[in-house]
């Protein structure tokens, strides 16, 4: 019954996540439905207060998200980066390493992808695509391994290091597109276009939907299999839930943390590469609208489960495309998307907090 009397940021985080996970196990589906249903109701009420009929707003949003081939394509495009960063976050957090650095790893992945895609001779053709994806994954992995190594060998707090490295990544992109990667004579903060052979093929005629969404879904399935059907996965979960017990049974904690952070960074980096090679075709300053942070929210709302994250990422994608339709049809600021994606988190926290206080978690 020894209890570590060690207050501080990290301990609280672990306790919160542990309680969160336990809460998931018990009646979580109902709670999530309540949170999402509740936030849609509140969102429509806000729209009503803006003078728009809620029925009409709901209809515009729905058709903007799923009403046409184009709409579905947009929803899936918006889903993809958030799913990638969610997968990246959950694999590290399940190992007990709080990787809040998905945004930075995504930025580095985009850099990693744009270098071969713009620098190598375009004549390499379709060989450029796998090379660029791989390069993006490696850049992200390296960015993820740095805080892991610092924690293991220097004892730094990973929450602070991963968080701060986001900004280094963001400003590194800014520096590159304003300088070394800016084409001569251009005044825009963006790189040159990537070679056509490096672009992700489009999937659906009449839409911009690219192969990246398939990659993300395959990765989600692969992570699920990894977590639940491999010895690596069970060791990773054991180390994350109870590092002392795992260590006592001879599990290599350092190797698990390093490898899970390598995987985590690689997935986030791949997410950045997919944005460059599938959506923007360039490296652009500010190309990520906080995908890394959205990914954390998606992962936690999805119960730190790959398949749960797919569902939540789809919701985020639909909100994104639905609110763009709201803006163009009803002239409602698309900032309402931030409200609609933020509300489930707030509601979920409130519901879980209430259950926690009532002793049901």
């Amino acid at each position: 019954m020894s209890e570590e009397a060690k207050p501080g940021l990290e301990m609280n985080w672990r306790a919160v996540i542990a309680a969160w996970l336990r809460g998931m196990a018990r009646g979580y589906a109902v709670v999530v439905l309540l949170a999402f249903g509740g936030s849609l109701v509140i969102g429509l009420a806000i729209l009503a207060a803006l003078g728009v009929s809620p029925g009409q707003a709901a209809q515009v949003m729905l058709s903007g998200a799923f009403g046409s081939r184009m709409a579905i394509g947009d929803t899936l495009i918006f889903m993809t980066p958030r799913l990638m960063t969610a997968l990246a976050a959950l694999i590290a957090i399940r190992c007990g390493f709080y990787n809040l650095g998905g945004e930075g790893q995504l930025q580095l992945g985009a850099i990693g992808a744009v270098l071969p895609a713009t620098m190598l001779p375009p004549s390499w053709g379709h060989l450029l695509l796998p090379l660029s994806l791989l390069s993006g994954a490696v850049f992200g992995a390296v960015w993820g391994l740095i805080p892991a190594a610092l924690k293991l060998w220097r004892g730094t707090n990973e929450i602070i290091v991963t968080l701060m490295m986001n900004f280094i990544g963001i400003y590194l992109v800014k520096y590159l597109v304003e300088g070394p990667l800016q084409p001569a004579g251009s005044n825009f903060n963006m790189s040159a276009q990537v070679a056509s052979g490096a672009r992700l093929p489009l999937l659906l005629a009449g839409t911009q939907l690219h192969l990246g969404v398939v990659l993300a879904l395959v990765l989600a399935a692969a992570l699920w299999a990894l977590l639940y059907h491999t010895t690596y996965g069970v060791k990773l979960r054991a180390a994350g839930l109870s590092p002392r017990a795992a260590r006592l049974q001879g599990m290599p904690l350092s190797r698990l943390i390093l490898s899970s952070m390598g995987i985590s960074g690689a997935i986030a980096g791949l997410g950045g590469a997919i944005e460059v090679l599938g959506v923007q075709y360039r490296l652009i300053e500010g190309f990520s609208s906080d995908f890394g942070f959205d990914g954390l929210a998606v992962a936690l709302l999805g119960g730190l489960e790959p398949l749960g994250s797919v569902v939540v990422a789809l919701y985020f994608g639909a909100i994104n495309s639905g609110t763009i339709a709201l803006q163009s049809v009803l002239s409602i600021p698309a900032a309402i998307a931030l409200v609609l994606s933020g509300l489930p988190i707030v509601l979920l926290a409130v519901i879980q907090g209430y259950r926690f206080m009532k002793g049901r978690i």
Partner: protein
Amino acid sequence: MKAKPFLALTAVTKSFVPGFPVLQDVSLGFRKGEVHAILGENGAGKSTLLNILFGMHQADAGGILLAGREVVHHSPADAIANRIGMVHQHFKLVRSFTVAENLRLAAPPAIRPSLRRHADIARLAKGFGLDIDPRAVVASLPLSMQQRVEILKALINQAELILFDEPTTILNPAEIEAFYAVLRQIAAEGRAVVVVTHHLNEVIAHAQHASVIRRGQLISSGPVAGRAREDFVREMVGHEVDLSAPLPNSGLGRGAAELSLRDVTLAPTPSSSGLKHMSLDVHAGEVVGIAGVEGNGQRELFDIVAGLRRPDAGSVQARRQHADGRPVAGLVPEDRHQEGLVLDLPVSVNLLLNKIGEAPYARGGRLMHGKITAQAERMRADSDVRARSVHVTPRILSGGNQQKIVLARALNEDAAIVVVYQPTRGLDVAASEEVLRRLRAAANAGKAVLFISSNLDEIMRISDRIVIFYAGQAVGEVGRDASRAAVGALMTGGAHA
């Protein structure tokens, strides 16, 4: 002499699943001025009884009489309003707040002004015999001090009846003495004190009144004075258990040395005595008990044998070793929840945590769920782990069942060495007996058991040899037939035999 009870339960019945009463027709009275112990095995219904008193559960039938008047507690707030306080097993404190802040938070508005100054709080606490620094942050305090904050919370709410749920599991022997001194004072000042526990020795030493509950029924209730320990054990367990008889060894003598420590040395630190030139052999077929007051090198010995730490000097040799030189050994660590189990992974994974990456439970890195479940089911049946299935998590099991999982895994290790550290901590009489019996049986079947414990009674019963630790050194070794007094003297560093 008998005053009317301050609070009484009248024929209380409670069931969570229809047809399986947790409490059946229990009538009990608590008097002011008395420490009233409620004894019972885990799962006997003690905690449910407390929860009904404190308003967290409601009785299906029967009720609560407060000073002869029928009261209903719908929530803890009702109970607190009726001057009932409770000190839970897991404290309800804001860990990042100071002692003073926690007290102000719990105090009724009328009292709060009197808690404004630290000096006033310190004086108030001292008046109750509870020395504590009001400025200290709760998280930085040892558990015994956090417990005092909980007691103070009840006292400033002017509780006349204070309930304690297993208050001493987290305390060391010296702290337990101090704790009961406080309880006696609180009771002597005219309050009723109720302590739920399964530690018999404490009850006999400190309680005036004891009630025994077994499987939801009140078995006895009366003054402690003049009652024998064996009576209580029989009433709690339901049959005769001899808690002093040695557990028989095989009589075959010991085999080869499985584990050898030679001159193992660990530098002392402010929080550890270290180890000084420790040499120790554990042979197949024997139980070697390590006796000593906590903190004299026991933790360090466990860590070294478990491979968690490397000695500064000396060697650890085992017949079978891992690739990195750690001995292959079945381990039962001190902290069941943090070190023994992964509470949120299934029982099956916990039973095989030491072998989860090996054939036949894994093939080419893939988990063989069928093989894991089948083997786990076998181990569960052998060890009598009471769980609905091996797919549930140990978090929902009782302490006794959790420890059966840890022990089953340790005995399933492919090595003769088994190292156990405080294996019966927090377990009730029946579960403790089960653990000791299994360990002795394992030794008799050829395992080499290193038994580290602060419970001298257990060590005396199970061990073939007892090595006594003092200040990180082995200061003596005695055999099966040694006297308690001789061991006790060595433990306190008195006689270097």
